[in-house]
């Protein structure tokens, strides 16, 4: 029931790791739960793991809702606090 935030994959690394970016913030996450992922994909990120792919449209819609609810900045701060 917790929040997950969409982010764009900017680099793939060894050992099922990847770097995602959102609003200029970068974070290293695990993509071990995904069958396939490519640079440029949007993924839903929760506690350091990509849970599944989302379309760019769904990512934009979710980010807009999070901003409207006043929680996007807090989520970004939290991601920045655990910067890769």
């Amino acid at each position: 029931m917790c929040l997950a935030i969409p982010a764009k994959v900017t680099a793939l690394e060894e050992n099922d790791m990847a770097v995602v970016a959102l609003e200029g913030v970068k974070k290293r996450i695990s993509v071990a739960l995904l069958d396939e992922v490519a640079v440029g994909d949007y993924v839903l990120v929760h506690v350091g793991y990509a849970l599944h792919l989302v379309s760019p449209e769904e990512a934009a819609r979710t980010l807009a809702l999070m901003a409207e609810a006043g929680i996007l900045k807090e989520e970004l701060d939290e991601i920045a606090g655990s910067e890769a």
Partner: protein
Amino acid sequence: MLEGKVEITLGKGAGSSVRHDRTVNISPVLRGRMPAEVITRISSVYGVCANAQSHAAVLALESAMGTVADRETASARALVTAMETLRENVLRIALAWPTFSGNEPEGSSVRPVISYVSRVRQALFAGSDPFAIGAGCMPDREAALAVIDEAEALLADRIFGEPLEAWRARRGLAGLADWCALRGTAAARMVANLNEKNWIHLADAGREAVGLPEAGSVAAWPRLLAGNTGVAPFASQGGVPETTLFSRRLAEGAVESLNSSGLGARFVARLAELACLPAEMRLLLDGQGEPRAMTGSDDGRGIGMVEAARGLLIHTVTLLGGRVDTYRIVSPTDWNFDSRGIAARCLATLDGHDEADRISLAHLVVNAIDPCVAYEVRAA
């Protein structure tokens, strides 16, 4: 976080405190919206348990609108939510439990679980949204059964290391110790680790305030939950009731036979949930199961209640001219991390331990109650 953050302070002598900061009210994002739009918005914002959230939302909205789903659709919706519960608990075990004994998370070993919810949705609702207002199921029984069978096989192989019925037949600490000795899964290692440290029975807060009030009074709940009073109207001398996998599964043999409400019983309850879910999903598919969801209305308020991955999830709504006027979500966190909730009561039992152990135990208490909640532990 939408559900706020939990701050735990471990005091010396003066006991511990739990502070749940409810930072965000979802209501403004939903006010003035049409019911169908509410479902979409909730599903987008709550990405992790989107199905349980959408399920509670549609039950609340449909009851406020005076409609009710047919029994087959209600069962199919419950099956989708149950599969999401299975997925979430598998993930929390695979990702977190190995780390408590210094090992790496085992996410890739349970990767197939990610696909189960979308596959069971497709099998039961043929690509349409199960939680749309007025949805009707179009079940492909064989396809749904195949997903459930696959989920059970994954549980047997990666979580239990033995058939689910064999695990469910285990009784007492001796039965679980035997399982730990025979099976090398992360779950078995977790229970073995607790046992080796003699931590199985720690953090036992008793069962006085364990259960929520009877569901028979559900119609009165929206009024009790309204406003800023939170879950306080439900508190008794024993504290605020809990809604966890332990309270849901305490009658299950492996849990009940531990005769304890300590850490071990709480972690075993998470396993009991997983061990029970495939059979319960088959019953739902055959029209014999009871959906773990309730709905009702009172004085224009609709209420939807769903047993989700971490406990009971409640949505309440009022409509004005067909649009949302007020909306409230009461999550398991609201009950369990209330200052008089189960987390506080468990932590209060740890006063006699040294600081390092208390911090380790506090992390275990939080994970046993709710492996998803955002929290900090501080020693005063």
